[in-house]
């Protein structure tokens, strides 16, 4: 493609004719207008990013004029609504990370195995059943997972562990884990399927079993793609809102006990937004300060994932 393009460019420079564009004529005005309209549409995405960054930074700046960043990022008590106020974001971050780690512990091993199964083992018939089922699982709205957490997972947990609170980390982590499972499995499958057949055939020719081919040849070859799927799934878990708000609760305390209730960054934003908080107050600004923290976390992870995918593509295409 690029070579054809280079030839084309040379021809264009010589003759002044672009194969893809007709010489100017009567319809030119319409053509140019449409081209600019389409450009404007594409530019909306840039404006969105700029808008997000501007809004978050501006409100967070107003917030940090009143509360020192040191208190915000190192404080261990989050009580923005009660006197004495305290703005330590650590409990929210710890709550979010506990959910994320828990969800990852469920979705990463399961999702990888499902991805391996789909790419290496499954017959066409099985794929025809499993793929749509996973797509449905991926398409279920997060609020439904929240319902499932509150009314199915938590009661089930309490049968086995009576000390579990009504809202708890474990239930939130489990439902988020189920939620991101299809993401891990489908991205893993894509990465594994992209590994050239010749690698598999080489391994089989040396007498490897299917397990050895899958686990010791194909899996390492697809590793950066697989890692990218993990990072993307975890970043989704960090930004997950409705399921954790419902299942994990609204009490921002610093705890590492999965049976207790916590509050995630996203759940805090929801809690404040449900009331009518006037603009300009500190409460209003806290959701942007928490939002910018959340945005930084997910952005960093997405950049890592995009890098990994790029590296993976360079190897195999």
């Amino acid at each position: 493609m690029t070579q054809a393009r280079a030839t084309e460019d040379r021809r264009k420079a010589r003759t002044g004719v672009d194969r893809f564009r007709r010489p100017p004529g009567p319809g030119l005005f319409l053509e140019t207008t449409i081209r600019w309209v389409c450009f404007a549409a594409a530019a909306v995405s840039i404006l969105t990013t700029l808008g997000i960054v501007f809004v978050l930074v501006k409100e967070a700046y107003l917030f940090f004029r009143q509360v020192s960043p040191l208190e915000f990022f190192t404080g261990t008590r989050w009580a923005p609504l009660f006197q004495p106020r305290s703005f330590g974001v650590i409990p929210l971050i710890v709550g979010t990370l506990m959910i994320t780690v828990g969800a990852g512990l469920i979705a990463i091993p399961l999702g990888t195995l499902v991805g391996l199964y789909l790419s290496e083992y499954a017959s066409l018939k099985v794929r025809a059943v499993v793929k749509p089922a996973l797509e449905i699982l991926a398409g279920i709205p997060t609020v439904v997972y929240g319902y499932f957490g509150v009314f199915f997972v938590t009661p089930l947990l309490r049968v086995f562990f009576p000390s579990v609170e009504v809202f708890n980390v474990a239930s939130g982590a489990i439902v988020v884990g189920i939620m991101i499972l299809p993401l891990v499995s489908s991205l893993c499958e894509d990465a594994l399927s992209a590994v050239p057949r010749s690698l598999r055939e080489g391994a089989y020719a040396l007498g490897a079993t299917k397990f050895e081919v899958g686990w010791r040849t194909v899996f390492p070859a697809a590793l950066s793609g697989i890692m990218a799927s993990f990072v993307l799934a975890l970043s989704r878990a960090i930004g997950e809102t409705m399921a954790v708000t419902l299942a994990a609760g609204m009490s921002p305390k610093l705890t590492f006990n999965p049976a207790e209730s916590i509050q995630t960054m996203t759940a805090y934003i929801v809690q404040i937004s449900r009331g009518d908080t006037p603009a300009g107050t500190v409460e209003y600004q806290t959701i942007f300060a928490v939002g910018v923290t959340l945005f930084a976390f997910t952005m960093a992870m997405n950049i890592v994932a995009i890098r990994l995918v790029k590296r993976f593509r360079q190897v195999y295409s």
Partner: protein
Amino acid sequence: MSIERYRKRVTARGVKDLLFTNLCFVATLIGIVLLAVLLYSVFRDGSQRLSWDFLNSFPSRFPEKAGIKSALFGSLWVVVLTGAIAVPTGIAAAIYLEEFQRRRTWLTELIQVNISNLAGVPSIVYGLLGLAVFVRWMALDRSVISGALTMALLILPMLITVSQEALKAVPDSYREGSLALGATQWQTIYRQVLPAALPGILTGVILSLSRALGETAPLILIGAVSFVRFVPEGLGSSFTVLPIQIFNWTSQPQKGFQEAAAAGIIVLLVVLLSLNATAIYLRHRASRHA
């Protein structure tokens, strides 16, 4: 190595192979079972509550009288408006990136990277954007149009990516044939490329609108209120949507509201699954014709 030891190793490797195959299979089975359990638990809780009255009543303080009429109409308003804003914009952006500007410049590269980054931004952050820009700055207030604009920004990255894929799949010979016959570039795009890419684009449109239908968090930030006893009357009307209604009922302590939430979920899932089925059918048809 004696032949005995060799045989033993081969057997051990075979056993390992078999175990791993089963492990993968069981993992996949767990995924399917989880889906089944989830659907079952919702249907068990909510199926008795489903009735015409449930669809046609407004929310109420009394769980047995509560219904989803305002939520259904609110969702319809938001999804239709979101589509009206996002679909033309998304397709136009994809056309720019795939047709008008086929050569990669730093600008298109920037837009492309930006789109894949935006796709990873949590939906609640779009809510913060909508709250600050549409609700406050543009003073559109907590209205249907604020919600739709926010949702449109949320689904745009997905819409653009899918439309780009669909346009990429149209063979160059279509374009060259049309241009060779003297058509302008826009005539080529409009009469040849777009019709050929339509099934793919339509699939993307359906999938992104179903995403908009199921999203909750951004609309909570926009201020879609949960207790709405009227149907939206216009763009400036306040509103609620089905997922928010479900969220609200789920967070109520009474048993009656739990059933109402489950019934609401059934309605939501039925709509989403039929949308998904349509998308799968379209994709299937497109792949058969290609």
